[in-house]
């Protein structure tokens, strides 16, 4: 691969409330790739996702992150979003009173403006929305409702994927989008992700289980453990984890099994 990475993380150390959560992450994601980051609860997966999206409660202790060759960390979250970084939230927040449609139109047009494209009017936007909603089998009634307000867990996740397909990011980070989904919803989410796969685009799937990987085949699988990437491999690594659990990794690093 002669291209430069779309995302390059070098020795990233991050603290929150005085406690170090990420203890030196190094990772390169190239355009066209799908990476899966797996790990047990509390290993730092969500922290990594939030730091990449620009959440401000985290303290960067050391390291750097390059996005498309540029220093990412000083950019405010909206700047990162406008440059094509999308985070599918693990817990999408509710915004009462603001319709999903209105919210998305504002977001899509902000991004289009950034990309030098004309803003979509209401009719054009509605046509686009209908097309994408079909792709992720999103109930059109959800579009008229307030953002995530009263949505079920599955509807929220589906709405995240729907937003992702609308916003067409260059780097999509999905934070446990698969958790809590029934098998049909999982299939739909996978469908959305696969539709987005593109040689110019990279996808980072943060997940706890490997079942999503039955539908989306990753190029690289990383194991995040106690704030460090302790192992990387191909898709077979995910299967191994599924079979043996994370205790096996602990044993390998620390040298003794955890009870």
């Amino acid at each position: 691969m002669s291209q430069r990475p779309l995302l390059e993380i070098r020795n990233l150390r991050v603290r929150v409330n005085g406690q170090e959560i990420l203890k030196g992450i190094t990772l390169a994601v190239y355009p066209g790739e799908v990476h899966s980051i797996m790990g047990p609860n509390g290993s730092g997966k969500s922290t990594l996702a939030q730091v990449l999206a620009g959440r401000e409660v985290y303290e960067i202790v050391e390291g750097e992150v390059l996005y498309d060759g540029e220093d990412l960390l000083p950019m405010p979250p909206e700047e990162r979003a406008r440059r094509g970084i999308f985070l599918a939230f693990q817990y999408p927040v509710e915004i009462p009173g603001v319709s999903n449609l209105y919210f998305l139109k504002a977001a899509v047009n902000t991004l289009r403006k950034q990309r030098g494209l004309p803003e979509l009017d209401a009719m054009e936007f509605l046509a686009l929305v209908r097309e994408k909603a079909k792709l992720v089998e999103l109930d059109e009634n959800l579009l008229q409702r307030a953002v995530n307000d009263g949505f079920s867990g599955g509807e929220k996740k589906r709405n995240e994927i729907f937003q992702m397909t609308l916003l067409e990011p260059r780097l999509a980070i999905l934070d446990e989008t698969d958790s809590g989904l029934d098998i049909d919803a999982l299939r739909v989410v996978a469908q959305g992700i696969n539709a987005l796969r593109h040689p110019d685009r990279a996808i980072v799937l943060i997940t706890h289980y490997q079942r999503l990987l039955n539908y989306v085949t990753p190029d690289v699988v990383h194991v995040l453990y106690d704030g460090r990437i302790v192992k990387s491999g191909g898709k077979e690594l995910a299967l191994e984890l599924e079979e043996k659990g994370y205790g096996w990794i602990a044993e390998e690093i620390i040298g003794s099994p955890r009870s």
Partner: protein
Amino acid sequence: MATPTNIIEELVNREYRYGFVTPVEEEVFPPGLNEDIIRMISAKKNEPEWLLEWRLRAYRHWAKLVEEGAEPRWANVTYPPIDYQAIRYYAAPKRRPRSLDEVDPEIRRTYERLGIPLEEQERLAGVAVDAVFDSVSVATTFRQKLAELGIIFCSFSEAVQEHPELVRRWLGSVVPYTDNFFAALNSAVFSDGSFVYVPKGVRCPMELSTYFRINASQTGQFERTLIIADEGSYVSYLEGCTAPMRDENQLHAAVVELIALDNATIKYSTVQNWYPGDRQGRGGIYNFVTKRGKCLGRNSKISWTQVEVGSAITWKYPSCILIGDNSVGEFYSVAVTNHRQQADTGTKMIHIGKNTRSTIISKGISAGYGQNTYRGMVKILKGATGARNYSQCDSLLLGDKCGAHTFPYIEVHEPTAQLEHEATTSKISEEQLFYCRQRGLSAEDAISMIVNGFCKEVLRELPMEFAVEAQKLLGISLEGSIG
């Protein structure tokens, strides 16, 4: 990197845009209040004897209240005692126009800067404007066109001269001078305001509006508005208010009276943007206003919509007395308090007639150190069979130094009445902002979107042009505020 708290602060700290002073020669009375001042005001306006007598009775009542220390203190606001002898009760531009063309160019420019054109052929052609500058009305547009339909729309002073029988019949019939401290003061010293009469069966074809501007310093503004909608008529009326930025507090104590006869509808909308004072709470307008409507006739309807973003202190309860059977009262309110602003606002719905209905939708937004109080009363009298009320009071907090308070009073003497009351308090969270920003929206746009979503039910009650204006105003007045 900007923290969310900083962003809310920046948003809240945007400057007041209407703080300029117009260099115009004004005639002002010396500060202080006594019977001579009231006689001077009345003489200035060439008023009939009965009106002077009414003013003097109001003054004596007020003076008695002052003596008894009866200035109201029950509102959830704090301010140092007002020195009523330090206020000027009359200020008016020296050059008084006899027609629209003669309006002082400086004053014309003032209204242009405020976005209120005094030319009749202007963009806002669907709106007739009465422009009140300090104590007097300086221009009223579209009078001729309205007169053709029998609609009277003029300054209060002109109404006293030209339609004394109407003024005498209705003045004080909804808000008597004995009603409260500030109503008594207003009745004694009111200098001008707007007057509207819509005759039987006439639907007023355009929005009527009054634009109030305080310009002179150390001056109080005491306007009086009287609107009468005769049987089967309809009128939609708007008011807007701004004032220069000054370190002193200025008193605005207005009285508005509405009367709706059988099958008549009055829609009254306010976008109040008096100078709110600076970040430390210096200066700003004390907005102590009494607004009340009487649904006298059967099937009559009075609907209040207010967007209150200005003033250092707001004390205001636009109310409806539902006398006619099947009459309807509505109150839609957005009140914003930022920095050190305080608002104690709400409504009273008094159900007297049968099958009377009322709706109260109140949205309070607090940011900075702002304190926002909803105070509302729903009273169902015996005999108001089948009366119904629905109240909804929602509060939105931006940051953790502001406050929201709700005081609903409910008094029911009629067993067939049905009342519902809902209340919520929420906060714009850091998570919500981050979510919006992650989708590419700036924090300002995100806050404005959330706030406008919060106020949607009220904003949609405003006439179109004003809804757009109000939305922008909300964004501006909260610029600089999160947490």
